[in-house]
């Protein structure tokens, strides 16, 4: 199968990739670009571990063709904060003990980011609904909800100086 030349804008950087047209964004991120923060699991848009931001909206990278992403801005967990720094959501997940095995967390954080960008003053029910497409099989969701609510407060009082890309 012929490969096609794709130009993808990921975390503000342009990446030129040669890929077969049937390959998903998830596959290209992990295999071609080494961006393994985006996880792979169900491949059916059920579990949310592959969540990335496409033009600011949370989407499942497992059912999105890389070819569909040309000319559209993608953010992965690696691009949420400047290297060596933590986004307030990442800080809050650590502070609240919201992470156990960690596999669902990049997707959780990006889904939460998309939600807080348009709902800066959420309540618990709103956060639960926004994260309904992200499954955690380790523990429970309460600390994750607490972390997102806490991050929302932090973002309102002191937005990150290095704005997330």
């Amino acid at each position: 199968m012929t490969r096609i030349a794709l130009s993808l804008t990921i975390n503000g950087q342009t990446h030129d990739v040669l890929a077969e047209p049937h390959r998903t964004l998830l596959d290209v991120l992990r295999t071609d670009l080494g961006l393994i923060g985006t996880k792979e699991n169900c491949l059916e848009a059920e579990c949310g571990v592959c969540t990335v931001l496409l033009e600011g909206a949370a989407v499942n990278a497992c059912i999105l063709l890389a070819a569909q992403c040309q000319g559209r801005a993608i953010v992965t967990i690696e691009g949420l904060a400047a290297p060596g720094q933590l986004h307030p959501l990442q800080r809050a997940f650590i502070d609240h003990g919201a992470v156990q095995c960690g596999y669902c967390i990049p997707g959780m954080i990006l889904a939460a980011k998309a939600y807080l960008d348009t709902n800066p003053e959420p309540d618990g029910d709103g956060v639960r609904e926004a994260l309904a497409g992200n499954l955690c099989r380790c523990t429970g969701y309460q600390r994750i909800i607490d972390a997102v609510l806490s991050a929302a407060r932090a973002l309102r009082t002191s937005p990150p100086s290095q704005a997330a890309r």
Partner: protein
Amino acid sequence: MTFDYHEPTSVREAIELSARFGGDGRFLAGGTDLMVQIHRGRLNPRHVVSLQCVPGLDGIEVDGAVRLGARVTHRRLESAEAFQGALRGLAEGAEVVGGHQVRNVATVGGNIVNASPAADVVVVLLALDATLTCLGPAGERTVALDGFATAPGVTGLRPNELLTRASFPRLAPRSATVFLKAGRRRAMEISIACVAARVTLDDLERCQDVRIALGAVAPTAIRARAAERHLEARPLTDGLMRETGRIAAAECRPIGDVRASARYRALLVATLVPRALARCLERIKLGAP
């Protein structure tokens, strides 16, 4: 699994590509069904024709009628100003589908042509008397949504036709819509049964126009016509609404599966229908001047 990817930039080009590929081609919108079917090996198209660069398919237009482009996403139905009032049922049908990630990309057109008996938005569109516009090599035609799906996954869409929009008339004054869904959990759930109702009352508080549509209780989404007729020109009393629920339950043809037995589904219909009617009544009263 491998295919060629095409990104036409006009409806005409999309149709031409589809005609050229015949049965080897599939249109791609949100991909929430198509990509899953491809991953599972149930579909193996040689050519995937993405609609994302085709203009004119993502509009929500409200004038004499309401027109939804095939590529309008569930998230847009949820958040559109036009669907916060008497047409709230449409937003209610959209907001219970999947999670945000799915609703951000899953489209109205995909929901219709995928023809799942449990397609929540389709049930609401049935209650709204929606018609569909299909464009093919031979031109454009308009068909009723009611009867378009003939079996799970099967529709009257002709080879190489593209569904371009769903349209429905604006509601008369003193109308309301409601969508209710029963599932085993509150989110990321396929309906065990769902109901959409549209009610218009006359000046004497009698039902002037009623639609009751049911999902997940027959091979396709269906209208409960006997239940609708039972309400004609009558005021919505509690007793009448309960009777109507029982009639709708007798009309549906549910199956038993991993989510619920057939009997339980019918009982849900008997409960959800009067609830939906009562809520329509509340909404009309709240909205009344």
